[in-house]
């Protein structure tokens, strides 16, 4: 079962590459998404046995992030059918920003890379081996870089290059972290059998602490740059704003979680070694820096896709903060990861609808969305309220859980910074969103007519899920969240 999970998208990708007809290839993505999601769904009912000699093994933490990746991919696949029908044709297009002409990448390659991306994320989520995790995360970078460069113009190329170089160097530092972990566990007489958590965890109390500390710093900086923690977040707003919206949704909703998983695996090793508080302090520090950075940049930002990207920096900060505080906040962080993925995925897909009609990413020029695209405008507003943590959406519950745990554990100063950053970001985003939704339609924009079902169904479903989680969290999910949170408890 687990053995088939990464293979399904891999094979589908190869089939997509060979398929000549565009229409069936687009629906193939949907079939892959649904099949993958079904397989992942069965892991919730029947926990799968380890596969490939223990290299792949699903624990609650991995299961949670795997489900999110699969869900987001399926939503993006449905959206892609309509998107590619509109954008897929290879002919010269005019860049709306600088007027230069460009072509899109061949659709086959795009479909192949989407499938490879899902396959790589599946490997990342379903392994407890640090080396396999590293290989998987590097593979996500390589398979997603061509996705960012779908529209082949200068700006997307610049964004892709930044993404490739910053993330590759970052992930190379994480490899150094992995090596330092094995230095910490080095024992010439009885060497650890592998870099698998199952082999490392029993030996953790006896591992060399200075080396573990150094390893954690490198893993945090390395995977943190991929996750978009400030100040290593520079690639994120560029890549998210330049890639097609469905790719931004996957990057933000699924990929950032995968990188976070890399950091969480390190926490899992350091905690039993008695270094939980050390991890906690660093995570809180990076979390707060990310939130403050996002707050500073989001106010007055004129580009709505960059605004969403900075909001991702903020929410990655919240995740790091939640795990760093520990206890109830770790549970809150796990719930927050779910809510953020659902909501941000929906928001990026909606931003794609707006971009398709207005041909601008400027909040100042894309006005009167409620007149041009009434359903999209309603979802945009609801998504904004959800992402800023307004009740009754799920993010309110998770942000509140983290805040309560911060006060309960005596992190008063951090809690203040947290609340102020959240408030500033709310105001900053509200200004842009309200301006876009209201007002008259700009004269240059033609009324697009009725909205296509495929362009609003996915974001609607994702937002509905985020709303449901604000009102009711199913017992099965609560159990997995609690076990995932317990796995990353700092134990100090």
């Amino acid at each position, binding site marked *: 079962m687990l053995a088939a999970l990464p293979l399904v998208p891999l094979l589908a990708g190869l089939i997509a590459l060979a398929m000549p007809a565009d229409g069936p290839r687009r629906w193939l993505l949907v079939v892959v998404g649904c099949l993958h999601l079904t397989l992942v769904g069965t892991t919730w009912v029947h926990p799968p046995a380890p596969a490939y000699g223990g290299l792949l093994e699903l624990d609650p933490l991995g299961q949670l992030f795997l489900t999110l990746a699969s869900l987001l991919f399926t939503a993006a696949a449905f959206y892609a059918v309509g998107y590619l029908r509109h954008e897929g044709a290879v002919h010269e297009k005019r860049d709306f920003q*600088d007027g230069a002409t460009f072509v899109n990448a061949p659709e086959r390659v795009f479909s192949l890379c989407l499938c490879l991306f899902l396959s790589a994320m599946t490997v990342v989520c379903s392994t407890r081996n640090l*080396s396999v995790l590293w290989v998987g995360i590097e593979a996500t970078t390589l398979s997603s870089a061509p996705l960012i460069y779908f529209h082949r113009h200068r700006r997307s190329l610049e964004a892709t290059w930044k993404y490739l170089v910053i993330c590759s160097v970052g992930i190379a530092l994480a490899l150094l972290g992995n090596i330092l972990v094995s230095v910490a566990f080095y024992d010439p007489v009885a060497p650890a059998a592998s870099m698998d958590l199952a082999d490392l965890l029993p030996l953790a109390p006896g591992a060399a602490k200075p080396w573990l500390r150094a390893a954690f710093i490198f893993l945090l900086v390395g995977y943190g740059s991929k996750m978009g923690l400030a100040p290593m977040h520079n690639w994120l707003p560029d890549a998210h704003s330049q890639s097609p919206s469905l790719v931004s949704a996957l990057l933000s909703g699924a990929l950032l979680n995968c990188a976070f998983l890399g950091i969480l695996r390190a926490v899992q090793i350091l905690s039993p070694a008695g270094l939980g508080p050390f991890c906690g302090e660093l995570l809180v520090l990076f979390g707060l820096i990310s939130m403050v950075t996002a707050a500073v940049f989001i106010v007055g930002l004129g580009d709505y896709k*960059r605004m969403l990207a900075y909001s991702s920096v903020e929410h990655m900060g919240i995740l790091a903060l939640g795990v760093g505080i520990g206890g109830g906040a770790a549970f809150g962080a796990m719930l927050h990861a779910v809510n953020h993925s659902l909501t941000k995925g929906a928001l990026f897909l909606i931003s794609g609808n707006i971009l398709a009609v207005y041909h601008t990413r400027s909040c100042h020029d894309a006005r009167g969305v409620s007149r041009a695209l009434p359903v999209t405008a309603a979802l945009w507003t609801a998504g904004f309220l959800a992402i800023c943590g307004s009740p009754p959406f799920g993010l309110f519950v998770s942000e509140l859980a983290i805040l309560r745990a911060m006060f309960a554990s005596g992190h008063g100063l951090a809690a203040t910074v947290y609340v102020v950053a959240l408030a500033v970001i709310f105001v900053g985003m509200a200004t842009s969103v309200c301006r876009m939704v209201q007002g008259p339609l700009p004269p240059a924009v033609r009324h697009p007519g009725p909205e296509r079902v495929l362009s609003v169904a996915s974001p609607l479903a994702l937002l509905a899920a985020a709303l449901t989680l604000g009102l009711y969290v199913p017992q099965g999910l609560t159990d997995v969240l609690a076990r995932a949170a317990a796995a990353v408890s700092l134990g100090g």
Partner: protein
Amino acid sequence: MAAIQSLLVALVVVNLAYLAVTRLKTLTRITALQGVLLAATPLAIAGPHGHGLILSLAVLAIKGIGFPWLVARTLSRLEVNPVVEPYFGFNMSLLAGVGGLLFSLWLESRLPFPPGLFPPLLFPAALTSIFSGLTLVVARRKALTQVIGYLAAENGIFLLGVPLAAQGSVWLELSVLLDVFVAVFVMGIALHHINKTFESIDVGRFCSLRD
């Protein structure tokens, strides 16, 4: 022991050479030289059998031949100015490199290494390689030198992992190598597009994405 020491001294010299070289072609050759020296380290440490031999051959194929070939091929197709254009001068870079070497020698004498794990000088050699690589990434103007810098940094990290490699499985080592190979390949493709779109591979021209 003597063999490994000579190798490591050679590696340190190569690392410093990265910073002083003014021609892209020479830079490519240095990458090849570093790859070959790296391929010899598993043999010098673990002896020419089993695990070490497979790893050594793989490193020779990928780092000694594969990467330099990829880089040289990209270079010949791009028809760019053959001179490495630095943001700050070669002498300064070299001075910084020597500073990094001294720092890593000092660090080696202070860190509590597990006894018998790293041969002397391996840690400074690895650290200067990472340092030189990162310097090439941030302090050179051309996108191609960033790729070479990434390679040099990765080589340094790899060197640090060699003494530990005997504990892990060859499979995983090989997949790491393969991943980096694909990374360089993808960067090569991106370089072609950059050259075509910007009519240059100068990253200083990347200025359209701002807040």
